[in-house]
């Protein structure tokens, strides 16, 4: 009857389909209750596993839950690990909020750590060396995510895949760099020469790894809280992450926020590497990260992408990691229990009543 044919560009096709394009943190359920419940269920499940496999369940049990608080050393390790986890979790949260899954925090952290070690060694002793090392760590972290970020913004390349793959490139690149130029010739392991003690981040508890980095990290978390909750830029970033079409409609440049957020995310992860090297290992060692990057994603989810939540979740999670370490040395239950816990937590936290929406 009329030339009223279908619109030339069916919008349905554009909107549907690609599950990876669901803005990241929409996957998160809203409730605090769910985070707490997930943690309780996760720990409960760990206890069941301990009970099933341990020769002496009660000892293992006590080590896992209370091991962190058994010695100053363990407590200090917990704080040191938490410091790094907060950074990688904040890194994940910054990406999620702008609508991107930065799964590459592990790689950014590793290269950031290497950059910190090398810079500290090159620039000189004391505060200047430390500052330069941390700045360089953040820069290198940002640089490492820049390529996936640019691909995402320019060509809509799926950043989940690219950042994930960049982890493996980062690991091998670090190996190559250390072996070729930066290796400690006196050591049998793949590591850089030990840093001068003046370059170490000052310790908080004697004999333990807890260090001044924790103050820096709390300040960063506070700064991000202000950014997320109290600034216009934070709200715009949130809109861009939640619904790019809405953000565009409002005149918000989603791509810019996405790019900046990913760069910020990479910088935080890189800084995490710097703090781990300057504060814990005091040299770049191959394998210095017990998967801080991936653990940070879990922590970010438990903390519901909120800075305060992330601080608490990081403390909780690192006490479980420390507990698992204590448990491994005291009993026959392996550290890998933590990875089971991690998997269970991610499943519980990202699941929703009623299934696929």
């Amino acid at each position: 009857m009329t030339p009223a044919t279908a619109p030339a560009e069916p919008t349905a096709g554009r909107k549907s389909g690609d599950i990876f394009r669901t803005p990241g943190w929409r996957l998160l359920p809203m409730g605090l209750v769910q985070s707490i419940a997930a943690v309780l269920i996760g720990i409960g499940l760990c206890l069941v596993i301990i009970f099933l496999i341990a020769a002496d369940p009660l000892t293992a049990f006590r080590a896992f839950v209370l091991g962190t608080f058994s010695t100053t050393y363990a407590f200090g390790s917990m704080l040191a690990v938490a410091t790094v986890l907060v950074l990688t979790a904040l890194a994940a949260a910054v990406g999620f909020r702008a609508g991107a899954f930065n799964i590459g925090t592990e790689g950014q952290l590793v290269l950031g750590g290497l950059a910190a070690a090398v810079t500290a060694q090159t620039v000189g002793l004391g505060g200047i060396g430390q500052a330069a090392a941390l700045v360089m760590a953040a820069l290198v972290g940002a640089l490492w995510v820049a390529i996936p970020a640019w691909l995402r913004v320019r060509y809509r390349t799926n950043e989940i895949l690219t950042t994930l793959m960049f982890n493996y490139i980062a690991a091998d690149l670090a190996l190559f760099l250390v072996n070729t130029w930066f290796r400690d010739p006196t050591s049998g392991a793949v590591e850089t020469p030990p840093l001068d003690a003046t370059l170490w981040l000052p310790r908080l508890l004697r004999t333990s790894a807890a260090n001044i980095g924790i103050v820096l990290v709390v300040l960063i978390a506070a700064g991000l809280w202000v950014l997320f909750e109290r600034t216009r830029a934070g709200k715009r970033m949130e809109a861009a992450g939640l619904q790019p079409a809405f953000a565009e409609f409002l005149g918000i440049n989603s791509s810019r926020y996405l790019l900046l957020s990913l760069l910020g995310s990479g910088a935080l992860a890189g800084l995490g590497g710097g703090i781990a090297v300057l504060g814990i290992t005091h040299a770049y060692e191959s394998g210095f990260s017990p998967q801080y990057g991936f653990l940070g994603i879990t922590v970010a989810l438990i903390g519901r992408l909120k800075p305060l939540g992330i601080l608490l979740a990081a403390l909780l999670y690192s006490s479980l990691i420390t507990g698992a370490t204590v448990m491994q040395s005291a009993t026959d239950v392996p550290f890998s229990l933590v990875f089971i816990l991690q998997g269970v937590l991610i499943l519980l936290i990202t699941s929703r009543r009623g299934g696929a929406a």
Partner: protein
Amino acid sequence: MTIEQPTPTAETRAPLLRMQGIVKRFGKMTAVDQVDFDVRAGEIHALLGENGAGKSTLMNCLFGLTRPDEGQILIDGRPADIASPREAQELGIGMVHQHFKLVPSMTVAENVFLGSEPHAGPFLRHRTANEDVARLAQTYGLELDPTDRVGSLSVGAQQRVEILRALAKKVRVLILDEPTAVLTPAEAERFFAVMKGFAAQGLAIVLISHHLDEVRKVADRVTVLRRGRKVADAPMGALTNRDLATLIIGEERPVLSEVPMGAPGQLRLEVTGLTLRNGKGLEIVHGVDFSVSAGQIVGILGIAGNGQTELVEALTGLRRPSSGAVIVNGVDVTGRDPGTVRRAGLGHIPEDRIGRGMAGYWTVRDNIAVGYLDTDKVGGRLLAHGRISALVRGLMQQFDVRANSPEQLARRLSGGNAQKMVLARELSRHPSVVICAEPTRGLDIAATDFVRKELVAQRDAGAAVLLVSSEIEEVTRIADCVLVISSGRIVARYEGRRPTEAEVGRSMLGEAA
């Protein structure tokens, strides 16, 4: 599939399906209260009511999505206990939802047989599936190619796939939930013919709709629900539209009586020679010229898909024109970004309310406040929660946005409240130019009225309003100047008077004005 013989005496037959004394409570709220409902083979039975009147809940009881607290359902006089959609389908009940549940990357046939694919052992029989779908489509007069990918189909065709999926399951009772909400008027017309064909073949059809005119065209009988109770059950011919409106909203319909013509002032929006191409490089809008003045509503009326969506995108900075100019308040904003166009004084009520007009996973509060981020009403250097709350509460009241609290997620709002929330954000800052596209699509009568009144109020306050709509009644009622768009050209202009619906109807269909 079963194709029953048409029965000329549908009215005299015993009901195929009867629901008796259905009660459904959600907590303290009674969503459906002692409702009787029946439908006969060969009959189209319309179910009317405002949003929240209980239509969907009643039908969900029937389709096994929820279970009634009281009452029973009889099919062919035998009591049926329907615990799940699967059981409903086994009993011959099919439902086509307003929001399609299709897999875009699969073909039409694959979607139709999803979950019940014809197979030989472990192997799928694609050819059988395609042939079955082709036959089914032909039987029911649904134009579809079984091998097309669903993602590449128009919305109307996707709906036909959804219907075919219901029909493939030996359906006897077909529930259609607002089937025309997503269709262009031409597609809707085609759909009505199809629906009548189904009835002629002996299907019992339940039609849920907001549109009285549509219902009048196709339905044999009508049931009206109001606040969970049945307030009418009568043959269609026995009730006028006015009766129905009264029954639906429970009082005399607050008809937006004669809106006085506006008094145009200064030129606010000027569009000259605007030409647009779509993604494939085809020209879809051909050199359109018009202007809107302060205190004037200009209506652009056209059947959806004639270039108006793209036109609005170009005016609001969402699409770059290939030539021509857009001038807002004397500022040339051609091809500029949406932010620049907004700053030039433009408010936009988008056609895609859910996708563009709001963030469903944001609170009502954030959805409104985000429109004020460039002002000090949301705080100084940092955002101030007190100020935001005061602002949002005031606007929710002013625009009658009914939510449990400002913290409610926007996606939980009804269509009308969602649109009022968009209005609250877009219109409360008194933009000098307002562009709105299909502002009342999918809204109930009360919300529709609210939106239209608000547009007139904006005009009277001195805004230049551009109303782009496919609803003849809407445009001819409130616009001071009507432009008819067809195939990307303005084919008729009515200035200084309001044309009759028949006049514009003819030009929309491409006849000479």
